[in-house]
């Protein structure tokens, strides 16, 4: 292979120089100063509505990134430029607080939720009485119980805690399909791939292809709380305004419409 002609090398060199010159020296942040909110996957529908209301009310944009709270917390710990973090449990907010990555004075509990057992709506499933020792293993048959990964994702942790408290975990521990987040678990049930799944009540309400067959008693798991806080890395002056907006009437209405409990 002959060496490339000088012209080609010159063009490549120029392109490389341009790219290096244009590369931002500071870590990437959301364009045009809009706010970057890292939010638990279960908040997708509700927070999208809240962000739309925020844009209309203040003329400023808020952009949300949804994933499992575990994944988001790890990303923030690795330097992700989020302005706010809304977690689905206290553990992952504590994780960031211990590393001084959130402003403790801005932390508060925003929402509550409930845990439900769902099944594919197409199966016209019978209701299940969720009580200590209920026959979940029998109901699963040769299928698997879809839930968010019980080792790290809040929805999975709540689910495992509830099943343990009800004395059923040991019978189904080997029959779980651990999904990357609660919405992925919801998908498995909606597609009929898993006969049952454990998701939040708000997720079941958002997905017409699943039916709620039972609710886990609130006493069977730690209270499901969504704390919110501003990150210490945030340099966006709108963060405080957005935080206040989350508690406004418009935002509360949007959260309630999806089935979340709004905490005072």
């Amino acid at each position, binding site marked *: 292979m002959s060496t490339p002609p000088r012209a080609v090398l010159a063009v490549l060199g120029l392109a490389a120089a341009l790219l290096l010159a244009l590369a931002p020296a500071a870590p990437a942040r959301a364009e045009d100063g809009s706010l970057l909110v890292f939010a638990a996957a279960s908040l997708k529908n509700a927070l999208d509505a809240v962000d739309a209301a925020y844009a209309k009310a203040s003329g400023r944009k808020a952009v949300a990134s949804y994933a499992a709270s*575990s994944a988001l917390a790890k990303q923030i710990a690795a330097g992700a430029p989020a302005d706010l973090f809304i977690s689905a449990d206290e553990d992952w907010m504590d994780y960031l607080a211990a590393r001084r990555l959130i402003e403790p004075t801005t932390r508060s509990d925003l929402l509550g939720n409930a845990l439900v057992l769902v099944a594919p709506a197409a199966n016209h499933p019978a209701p299940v009485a969720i009580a200590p020792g209920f026959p979940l293993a029998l109901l699963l048959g040769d299928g698997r119980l879809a839930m968010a990964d019980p080792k*790290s994702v809040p929805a999975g942790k709540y689910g495992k805690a509830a099943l343990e408290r009800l004395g059923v975990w040991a019978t189904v521990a080997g029959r779980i399909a651990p999904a990357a987040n609660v919405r992925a678990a919801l998908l498995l049930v909606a597609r009929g791939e898993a006969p049952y799944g454990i998701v939040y009540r708000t997720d079941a309400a958002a997905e017409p292809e699943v039916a709620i067959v039972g609710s886990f008693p609130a006493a069977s798991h730690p209270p499901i709380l969504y704390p919110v806080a501003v990150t210490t890395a945030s340099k966006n002056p709108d963060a405080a305004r957005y935080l206040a907006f989350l508690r406004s009437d418009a935002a509360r209405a949007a959260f309630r419409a999806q089935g979340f409990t709004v905490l005072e």
Partner: protein
Amino acid sequence: MTLALTPEELDAIRLSLRVALWAMACSLPPAVLVALVLARGRFWGKALLDGIVHLPLVLPPVVTGYLLLLLFGRQGPLGRFFAEAFGLVFAFRWTGAALAAAIMGFPLMVRAIRLSLEAVDRRLEAAAATLGAGALGVFATVTLPLMLPGIIAGLILSFARSFGEFGATITFVSNIPGETETLPLAIYAFTQAPGGDPMALRLTLVSVAVSMSALLAAELLARRLARKLAPA
């Protein structure tokens, strides 16, 4: 940080090797066939076939995983067919992980085989034919041996791609320890759990070691074969 591997980590490594080897072995015959068709065939729809074969290379892996879920899941048309006809279930089983890995590695295997196929001197095949060999005989004794460097390269590329497969696997068969939790999924799970970093690092080292060995082996084999097959 100790280098000793926990049982869960060993499980993940064993499962990854099993999944990648099966994926590699089972995609070889169809890959050779498709490479033959694409290299030598002349028919309407050839560009379409080429496009479909290369789709997993271009689509986001999560999309490929979702498509696999739709087609090969328990409710999917192909999933139901395989379960009823052969008793082969893909959903939430290592077979599903192997299928996802095979599909993701398929375009790489086809490309490598097709390249070496196109380099085969057709006059040698013609000579064999004039000496009395049938089409199958020509293929087996002349074409296949000459294609071998490409087939080896294709196998190694497919193995390496299968070994690193994540997006399609976690979307299609989720992350079940001992069944579908391959090395990349295990590393991901450890990075998500607080205090899982030492385990993630250990598995990353194993991953790098296996991939490097595979690539070095491929390079050595390819060179040896090229020397053997070079004109005297």
